[in-house]
């Protein structure tokens, strides 16, 4: 690789730091009796997050594992295929996960679930323009257009449960629930689809976990008779056997007794409900949904009159304390979130909400009257969402 003065030193630096850290802690991991597999997982998670953050460009060097590149490319292929065909390609990333898991034979059952967590946000991020699946038999993961994934990982009571919330462009909250047994669901209130991804659990020695199926039915408002309201993508990861079963159709479930029957029953219920779909029941069912949802990102989508009143009182106290100009009172009703901010106006700059931060060490800080001079070194900067580094930085500013 030719290294010119123009090449970005950041990816190389980060990569070398990652390698150093991983190698140094390998001993620590072994001392604690933690498997090497976990170390690899840490590395993978770390690198994935860096890639997702897009703060580093060119991070993915050629030297890196072909596995990651292959998975990434196949994920991209999945995106393109879904955008084109609106079809089943989304299964690929999970499939890839499955194959990779099988190849590595993780000993901890929670490991595959973790990878799913990592991958699914990616899928969701990349699923921009996928519409509804037209074919009832197509196993698709369809999200409404303009979904911007917004997920918070909230661990619920179970160790292996995580909830992700996806906020669509409309402001609706999709609850992407991972139940304790590993089944994943996407619940869209007021939308057409109930999306389910099922990871049928292993028959664990510890006992069979009965699948907790939360079905919130919101049959289609318009007429899409072909579309089943429930599109189930069962992904069966069977670690002990080498089976990867993907079922496009709801009714064709693999032969795991008990669980499958429950699923089938509920699926039948879904289909029956859809058969008699009318605007009334869906709305009722839609109304039933809100209680099931935990809206964590703040109530921005309901009318906020009450909140405005509270904000106003709160704001008046703030103003009295701070002796601010009266001009900010007028802003209270409009943007309660912004109203108490200090003098600087804009929050969203340069398309990013990033606070531009420079973390470094100082050699010398000098001031003359109101002229300041900065001599800094060994710094990492995040400006406009991108990362930069420097060994020396010299700056001037007037106060």
């Amino acid at each position, binding site marked *: 690789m030719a290294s010119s003065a123009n090449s970005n030193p950041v990816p190389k630096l980060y990569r070398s730091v990652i390698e150093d850290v991983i190698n140094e*802690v390998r001993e620590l991991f072994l001392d604690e009796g*933690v498997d090497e597999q976990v170390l690899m997982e840490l590395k993978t998670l770390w690198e994935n997050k*860096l890639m997702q953050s897009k703060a580093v460009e060119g991070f993915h060097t050629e030297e890196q594992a072909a596995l990651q590149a292959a998975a990434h490319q196949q994920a991209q292929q999945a995106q393109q295929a879904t955008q084109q065909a609106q079809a089943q390609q989304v299964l690929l990333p999970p499939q890839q996960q499955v194959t990779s898991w099988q190849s590595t034979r993780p000993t901890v059952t*929670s490991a595959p679930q973790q990878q799913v967590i990592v991958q699914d946000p990616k899928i969701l991020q990349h699923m921009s323009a996928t519409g509804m699946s037209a074919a009832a038999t197509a196993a698709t993961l369809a999200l409404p257009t303009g979904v911007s994934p917004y997920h918070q990982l909230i661990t619920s009571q179970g160790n292996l449960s995580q909830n992700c919330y996806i906020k669509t462009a409309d402001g609706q909250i999709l609850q992407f629930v991972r139940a304790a047994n590993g089944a994943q669901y996407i619940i869209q209130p007021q939308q057409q689809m109930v999306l389910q991804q099922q990871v049928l659990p292993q028959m664990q020695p510890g006992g069979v976990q009965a699948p907790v199926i939360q079905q919130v039915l919101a049959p289609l408002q318009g007429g899409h008779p072909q579309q089943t309201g429930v599109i189930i993508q069962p992904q069966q990861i069977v670690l002990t056997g080498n089976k990867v079963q993907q079922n496009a159709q709801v009714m064709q479930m693999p032969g795991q007794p008990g669980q499958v029957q429950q699923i089938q029953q509920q699926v039948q219920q879904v289909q029956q409900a859809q058969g008699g779909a009318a605007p009334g029941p869906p709305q009722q069912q839609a109304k039933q949904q809100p209680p099931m949802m935990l809206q964590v990102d703040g109530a921005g989508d309901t009318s906020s009159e009450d909140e405005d009143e509270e904000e106003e009182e709160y704001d008046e106290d703030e103003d009295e304390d701070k002796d601010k100009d009266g001009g900010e009172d007028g802003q209270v009703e409009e943007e309660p979130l912004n109203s108490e901010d200090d003098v600087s106006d804009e929050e969203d700059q340069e398309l990013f909400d990033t606070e531009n931060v420079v973390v470094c*060490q*100082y*050699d010398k800080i000098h001031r003359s009257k109101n002229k300041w001079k900065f001599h800094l070194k*060994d710094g*990492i900067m995040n400006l406009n969402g991108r990362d930069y580094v420097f060994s*020396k930085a010299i700056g001037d500013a007037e106060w």
Partner: protein
Amino acid sequence: MAYQLYRNTTLGNSLQESLDELIQTQQITPQLALQVLLQFDKAINTALANRVRNRVNFKGSLNTYRFCDNVWTFVLNDVEFREVTDLVKVDKVKIVACDGKSSDYFSHSSLIIRPRLFLTQ
């Protein structure tokens, strides 16, 4: 003990998040995660000191400054960062700088209780 200053960077935060995920699934202990972070501190400090060799200039207006516990914190507005190759402009930037002269004995984020002598006579 190296500065823990660099934990709040893209690299550091992604490491912390990854460690948190592993802790949540109980694949590692919090103690082990802490050890990893300490190792990260060493590695990033070394890497920055040895493997980076570029200069940056910047100019802007100083909005606020703070010097506490030997840490400077500045907020600048309308800043231009200039490197040989390119120019980056931002409306607002926060600079956090630890003392570059002494290698850190107490980390930036730790609480240091400085004994004050009260002379009673």
